[in-house]
């Protein structure tokens, strides 16, 4: 009975979305005509209440599905497919988004949260703009809700009620998985706000700096969440897949990375457009592209077009539906762009050496990287369609091109904040930064001689990280010394994010350079030494988990002969389906992770064990979190909320 209520709520949410889309958009079109002013006012007034109602309805549907999981209502197909009675309680809550149908409901929920937030915090904007922005979000909500209800209904009943369900995919029974998908979805779907704003601006034919200022924090917050989501996914892959890698250029990782790159470009171009009016058309196009890439990501994961560890079961009807939705949203937006963008006002002119130019270069490099990832991800499909044979595109392609494209960006990062808008003497920022560039290169050379292995990567990592860090701090120093000029949250956010890049660069390049890995056969009592670390194998014990049995290895790790931690790498066999999962035993450290994974039993008490020492690997995620934090801090700048008055 409850499930039917959930279903009804979802249907009502769809109708509300329909209202929210049609009436406010029609009202906003009619607003220019004085004869229809009454209709316009009434129709636009629907937008906010509809947004709130939608949140209540979708939240209700979501709670109903959660209750079905907690109470183990196996009469629902989705529940019986993705949980069983042995599943621990906490994973019953997270199983709600463990597979396709429920994760769509989570998308819809996140969308309605953003929707309601826009309704709540858009008071300073003109009514017409609010009506258009909410109307566009309503259109997107129609797409998601009808996709869920018509092709992937989580509330579908089974005619024969099974006594026991299957199980949640063991890969997903993990604390990291509890927050990874929601963060990712919040980020993905959050780009709907700049997208809706772009459409509203195109319909209006005017990019008002004041409205753009209002959109910027939304982009920053969405991008921050996406960053956290991607970082959590990478962290999860690191310890759960048992490989010790942190990025694989898997199609689904790429699907989340493309909107991230486009979003990073958008954050920068929005700043330029808001402050200088420069490249307004490009900013709108980028906003459209960022959200389109989010939708493309959803499409790639859910359509079965590309195969990946992450992909949900293939179903062509779903694929066609979401492709039609994607084509309608993106095609409509682009058509509008093509018709209206040439009429946008040109921004103020700027010289070749100016902050505008640097931001343009930043955007070109990020956009090129994004296009490169898109091409690599779709190339196997393209080759198939053109009958060029089966191809798989792997890390050699992505890694090489990505480094080539990002290297100039890393070089330019510290220049951005120190360069003046419009016109700059190239010698001024150069003079400020050259000493630090020299110092960074010097440290790189030192690293070259000190690194026991991977000299080139170690040197590049140290030099690049020091350069970005010191160059960014140089800006902070200049700014703090300047009397009477505030250090705004916007600047603090930028600084945090750029320092995050430095931390990330250090982590990524140093772990690639200095990582040591040994595969060994070990019997109880055996010791293996890796640099300063020693590992002693103490055998394997059998452990009974709630819904699995595990072989748990006992590996005592030492650093400089002092005991560090007893590691517990596990191989788990889950009760249902017999899937075997590895769970690495990791001692996390600021300067190095010590990592043990259990392989096969070799008989006679001997086991294959993989031992790794991974220096600075934490810095990768720490850097990502700093970047995300930068996005959030920027969004708190009160300047963005002063929309009605002009800039003080």
């Amino acid at each position, binding site marked *: 009975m409850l499930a039917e209520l959930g279903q009804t709520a979802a249907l009502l949410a769809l109708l509300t979305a329909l209202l929210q889309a049609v009436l406010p958009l029609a009202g906003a079109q009619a607003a220019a005509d004085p004869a229809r002013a009454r209709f316009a006012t009434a129709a636009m007034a629907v937008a906010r209440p509809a947004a709130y109602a939608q949140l209540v309805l979708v939240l209700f549907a979501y709670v109903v599905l959660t209750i079905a999981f907690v109470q183990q209502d196996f009469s629902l197909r989705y529940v019986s497919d993705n949980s069983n009675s042995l599943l621990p309680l906490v994973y019953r809550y997270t199983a709600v988004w463990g597979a396709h149908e429920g994760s769509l409901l989570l998308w819809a929920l996140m969308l309605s949260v953003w929707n309601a937030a826009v309704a709540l915090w858009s008071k300073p904007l003109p009514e017409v703009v609010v009506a258009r922005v909410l109307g566009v979000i309503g259109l997107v909500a129609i797409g998601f809700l009808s996709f869920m209800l018509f092709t992937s209904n989580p509330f579908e009943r089974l005619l024969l009620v099974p006594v026991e369900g299957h199980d949640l995919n063991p890969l997903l029974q993990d604390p990291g998985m509890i927050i990874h998908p929601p963060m990712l979805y919040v980020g993905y779907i959050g780009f709907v706000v700049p997208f809706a704003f772009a459409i509203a601006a195109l319909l209006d034919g005017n990019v008002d700096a004041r409205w753009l200022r209002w959109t910027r924090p939304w982009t920053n917050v969405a991008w921050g969440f996406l960053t956290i989501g991607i970082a959590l996914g990478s962290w999860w892959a690191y310890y759960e897949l048992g490989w010790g890698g942190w990025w694989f250029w898997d199609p689904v990782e790429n699907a989340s990375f493309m909107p991230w790159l486009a979003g990073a470009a958008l954050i920068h171009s929005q700043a330029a457009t808001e402050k200088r009016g420069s490249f307004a058309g490009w900013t709108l196009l980028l906003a459209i592209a960022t959200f389109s890439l989010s939708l493309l990501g959803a499409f790639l994961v859910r359509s079965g077009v590309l195969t990946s560890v992450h992909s949900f079961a293939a179903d062509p009807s779903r694929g066609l539906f979401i492709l039609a939705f994607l084509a309608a949203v993106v095609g409509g937006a682009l058509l509008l762009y093509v018709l209206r963008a040439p009429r946008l006002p040109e921004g103020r002119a700027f010289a070749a050496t100016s902050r505008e130019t640097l931001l343009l270069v930043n955007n070109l490099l990020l956009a090129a990287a994004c296009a490169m990832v898109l091409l690599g991800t779709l190339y196997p499909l393209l080759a198939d369609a053109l009958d060029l044979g089966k191809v798989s595109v792997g890390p050699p392609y992505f890694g090489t091109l990505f480094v080539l494209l990002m290297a100039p960006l890393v070089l330019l990062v510290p220049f951005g904040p120190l360069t003046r808008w419009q016109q700059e003497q190239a010698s001024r920022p150069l003079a400020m930064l050259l000493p630090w560039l020299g110092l960074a290169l010097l440290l790189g050379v030192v690293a070259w001689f000190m690194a026991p292995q991977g000299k080139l990567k170690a040197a590049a990592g140290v030099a690049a990280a020091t350069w970005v860090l010191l160059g960014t701090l140089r800006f902070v120093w200049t700014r703090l010394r300047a009397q009477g000029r505030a250090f705004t949250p916007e600047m603090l956010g930028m600084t945090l994010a750029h320092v995050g890049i430095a931390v990330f660069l250090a982590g990524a390049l140093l772990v690639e350079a200095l990582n040591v890995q040994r*595969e060994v056969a070990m019997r109880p009592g055996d010791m293996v030494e890796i640099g300063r670390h020693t590992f002693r194998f103490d055998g394997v014990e059998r452990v009974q988990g709630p819904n699995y049995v595990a072989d748990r290895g006992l590996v005592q790790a030492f650093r400089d002969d002092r005991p560090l931690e007893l590691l517990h790498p596990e191989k788990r066999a889950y009760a249902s389906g017999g899937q075997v999962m590895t769970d690495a035993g990791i001692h996390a450290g600021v300067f190095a992770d010590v990592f043990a994974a259990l392989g096969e039993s070799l008989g006679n008490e001997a086991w294959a064990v993989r031992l790794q020492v991974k220096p600075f690997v934490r810095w990768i995620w720490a850097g990502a979190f700093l970047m995300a934090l930068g996005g959030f801090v920027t969004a708190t700048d009160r300047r963005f909320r002063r929309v009605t008055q002009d800039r003080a």
Partner: protein
Amino acid sequence: MTTPAPSPAPAPRRGKATAAVIAVVFVALVGLLFYGVLVSDRADREALPSPLIGKPAPEFSLPVLHEAGRLVSSRELHGQPYLLNVWGSWCPGCRIEHPVIARFAETKRLRVIGYNWKDEHADALRWLEQFGNPYWLVLVDYDGRKAIDWGIYGAPETFLVDADGIVRWKHVGPVDDAVIANELGPVLDAIGVPR
């Protein structure tokens, strides 16, 4: 499009060029994705007729993954049918089909031979250690030179070679239980491999 009106400013022309680029990219992408959706459910999605079917398997002499220095030639394998499963530790599809191959190998209907393609020695060993080794024997073709004779252009691929060394069946892409039951099973019955 009608006859182009004389345009006073360069702006509209720039607009048209942008529009053309956007339209081409958009149409190409949607077309490609539409094609992807259409082929995504085809059971034989990856199947391309192999010219090898019904012909003798290519002659080879390849090293063995687990025994350094030992070479195994195609001749040594004749006399009994075998299933040749092409894989690499870098290949996500191989990880997906791995449990299926393992279950099939446990039925012991015929020898399942791994063909480790374009891989690194340590990665390959680690992969098998991690996910289990269902193979009777793992052949190694690190530079992929021999794979050309087999017409391998992706992993996973799976070949059935009968007792006389004739290629009887080929599957491109991950093997699943349905493929084994509906495609491989009948061929095995036809060439008289006992259940």
